[in-house]
């Protein structure tokens, strides 16, 4: 056998040589998943969150990645369908992502959060604010506050600042987990403050709704204000139909709809429509301006709230990754950090990974979301 051992020595040397010739590759990338509605009606929000997360990741990669490892974002379109979202979750698990940014809507979040908790796959949702996932020690964190909180804040603003006495609500059941918790909180607070909820209309946006008929019902309720708890497209279409029936109707909407798409599709009808705002578009602080510039350069457009919240969500994940080398420790690592800078305002995560984020109100003026007090 001895001579063969000598040959073994040669083969080892040859192997080393081949390896040396082939060269050694760069460090493998850290994979971060993304789940969001990239197609269909809610795709403005989905695309915005994707862009925000992507920008955060690309900025980190420009600085050399996390501990020398670049990050990649693996995107999956949930098509606003639970089945698609679960498939995406499974696929991302198989692709060994360290965390997932998303989903962008509450209903998908409610559908996949328990599965993600089972798989111990961390979801950091930028815009899914449903109360149904608040205060849970699960694998679901987010960079937005609770929708019930926003609903109550809106009701309070409408009654005390604007003197609204009666309102008709319309809720999109395609994202019921958001719309119901926002709408319920709004209705309760509105009534508590002495307001009267004249009607609560429900529709499912994915089933080709008749916006004109819905508008007739809302206007027919006799309420002085119509509050849409729906996506930007549906809110815009409803606003147009309502304004066509009653041009002076006071309009307000839930924050979900406050994307740039609403203004583009709503036209003149959404002028004056009031929304809770998750960020200040006119912020002159260097921090926000840096983010704005980076986003404009990258996507040749201005960021909406989805982009900003997703940017923050991705940065929560990045901060966590920088603090720990173990992906299994990522959640604990993020919760341990607690306070995050944010693209505009700092945000604070509690023990359940729910964050508190400043909110203010703004109406559409001359085709932009203006700040109102």
């Amino acid at each position, binding site marked *: 056998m*001895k*001579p*063969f*051992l*000598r*040959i*073994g*020595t*040669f*083969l*080892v*040397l*040859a192997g080393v*040589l*081949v390896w040396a*010739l082939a060269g050694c590759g760069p460090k*493998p*990338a850290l*994979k971060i998943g993304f789940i969001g509605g*990239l*197609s*269909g*009606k809610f*795709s*403005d929000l989905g*695309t915005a969150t*994707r*862009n925000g997360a*992507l920008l955060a990741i*690309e900025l980190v*990669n420009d600085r050399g990645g996390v501990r020398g490892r670049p990050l*990649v*974002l*693996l*995107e*999956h*379109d949930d098509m606003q369908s639970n089945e698609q979202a679960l498939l*995406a979750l499974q*696929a991302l698990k198989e692709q060994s992502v360290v965390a997932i940014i998303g989903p962008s809507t509450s209903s998908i979040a409610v559908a996949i959060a328990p599965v993600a908790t089972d798989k111990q796959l961390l979801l950091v949702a930028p815009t899914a604010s449903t109360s149904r996932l608040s205060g849970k020690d699960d694998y679901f964190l987010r960079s937005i506050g609770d929708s019930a909180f926003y609903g109550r804040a809106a009701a309070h603003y409408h009654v005390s600042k604007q003197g609204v006495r009666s309102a008709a609500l319309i809720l999109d059941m395609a994202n019921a987990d958001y719309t119901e918790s926002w709408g319920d909180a709004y209705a309760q607070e509105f009534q508590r403050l002495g307001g009267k909820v004249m009607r609560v209309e429900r529709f499912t946006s*994915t*089933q*080709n709704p*008749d*916006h*004109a008929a819905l508008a007739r019902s809302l206007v027919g309720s006799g309420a002085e204000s119509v509050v849409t708890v729906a996506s930007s*497209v549906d809110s*815009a*279409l409803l606003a*147009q139909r309502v304004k*066509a029936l009653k041009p002076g109707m006071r309009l307000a909407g839930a924050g979900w709809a406050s994307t740039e*798409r609403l*203004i*583009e*599709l*709503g*036209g003149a009808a959404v002028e004056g429509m009031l929304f809770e705002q998750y960020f200040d578009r006119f912020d002159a602080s260097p921090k926000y301006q840096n983010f704005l510039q980076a986003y404009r350069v*990258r*996507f*040749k457009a201005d960021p909406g709230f989805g982009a900003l919240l997703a940017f923050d969500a991705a940065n929560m994940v990045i901060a966590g990754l920088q603090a720990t080398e173990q992906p299994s420790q990522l959640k604990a690592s993020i919760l341990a950090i607690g306070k995050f800078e944010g693209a505009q305002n700092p945000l604070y995560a509690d023990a359940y990974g729910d964050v508190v984020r400043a909110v203010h109100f703004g109406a559409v003026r001359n*085709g932009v979301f203006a700040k109102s007090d």
Partner: protein
Amino acid sequence: MRLRAFFSWQQGLPTLHQVVLRWVALVVVLQLVFSLAVARYQLFPQVEALQIKLNETLAHNIARSSEQALVRPMTALQAALKQLEQGGAQAWSASVMQQLVDSIDAAESVYMLDRFGRVVAISVPPTSEQSNAPYAADKRLGLDLSRSEMFRSSQKNRVRMSPIFLSAVSDRPTVAVTGPLSDEGLLVMELSLNRLGQLRDDTAPGQEVQALVVDSNGQIMADQYGHKAQRSAMLPIEAMRQLGKGGAAVITIDDVRWFASSARIAVGALDWRVIVMRPEALVYAPVRHIVLATTITTGLFLVFVVSLLTLTTRRFTRAIEGLRHDAFALEAGRIPATRDMRLQELADLDASLRSMAQALLQREAALIQNNEALEARVQERTQHLMQVNADLEHAMRQLRHTQTELVQSGKMAALGAMVAGVAHEINTPLGNARLTSSSLVHRAQQLRQVMEGDKVSRAHIHQCAADLEEGAALIDRSLERAGNLVHSFKQVAVDQTSNRRRVFVLGEIIAENLMLLSQRLSKAHVKVRVNAPDKVEMLGYPGDLGQVITNLVENAQVHGYADSPGGEVTIDVALQGQARVRIQVRDRGRGIPKASLERIFDPFFTSRLGQGGSGLGLSIVFGLVTQSLAGSIAVESQEGVGTVFTLDLPLHAPERNES
């Protein structure tokens, strides 16, 4: 252990098999390295260049055909606008729009905006099976799109392509071709992105090559095989930067490296890019296959060659092993049996070995014969030598006997000399005594005559008595001196002969022995001066010490002052601490030549051979000092200056072993 053996060369000499295999392995490895180097530096770059060329051509072609596909809706819209300008009735415009939507495959809807941006007319394909949720087109009538990018950006007399937007009509991301109407309104045709993406299917150049269409943000608009879900929907920004406006680069998408080339699709506001790419792994695959094939072939070749070489070397080794056994046989003195060698060289070697064996055996026989003769001669010589040895031993014994006799006769001679000295010494007082006694007799006779005479005088008697007294006293003194001499002689003789161990005073022993020598010394005009402290008491053998002193002093007289008319010998005694004494006997004579100095204590060494020297004097001294007196003796001498003998003795000599 095995591992260490694997990585280190074996201890000792390598076998033939090992040497051959090492060389084979080296050659094979070199060949492998060479082919790998060729692959790395020749084949890989060539393949890369080829792939880049292919990608570029393909991307360019796809971009051109895509542009045509995109231009077609624009020209159709242009034509429709012309038709609409001519007509005017609502039914007419509805039919024109329907024709338009039917004529373009990708068209999802055609609608008309009035100058306020409101939807005033809409047409959709009769069966919009490609849309997920068929929508009632008429529900979109009245929609206000005045804020939309396409309405705000519309220009007079310009048919343009919008960027991607989320359509309020179809609820889907889409692009639209728009053209201005004469009443400041806008004719819009929305196109399905999916259908636009499908344009590339039939231009697919094969499974390994992928074609993508991305927008200026890197968003993947179309993907040849619908791989979208398998990877990022956005091309990494890094890849976008690398590809720039057009060109080739190796880009990384989700950890996979691709050879990519891009070509621009520029239609209206659309700024899209076709990217044709192929996984780096696949690009390199042919070369890798060649390398792999080469490696495997080389491996097989190695196994084959190693097997053959193993067989051959084993046969060779076995033959050599046989020859080794033959050598053993030869060693045992047998002519080895004939072997069947299958190789000419080995057969030749075998034959040579055989003839060598014959020669060796013959030579061995001759050697044995010679050996036997030699042995006989050796025996003869040995016997002779033994005889000589015996003779020598006999002579030696005789010599020893003679030596003893010589010592004895030396002692006797010394005693003789001593007796002569003593006789001489005694003779003087005895002579004196005799002379005096005869004088006394004479005086006594005189006295008697006087007494018998008459002239007796009292004074005379008195005188006589005084003379008698004086004479008697003189006799008494002489006799006492003689007695003293005899006593000394007796003591020395007793010491010399009995050799009893006793306590003695060193000074007395020196004085007694010197006295016995005084006759000889005075004759030779040699004076002896003794510097010794009083009462140095020793326990030991005074006879032996006396003999040593005598011999040394005699030696000084006989040798040191042989050529001089006289001289002085000094004996210095000094105590060395509590237990030892040093005695130095020094003369200022001619000294001892350096050559002789080392040998003076050897028996029979004498400088006065034939002149009466026995050559035993100092030898005896050495023996007595080192054995009987348990001390040591040293000599220093310089020619013409003198000689010093230094004795270093214990005050208490150990009891002598009489045996």
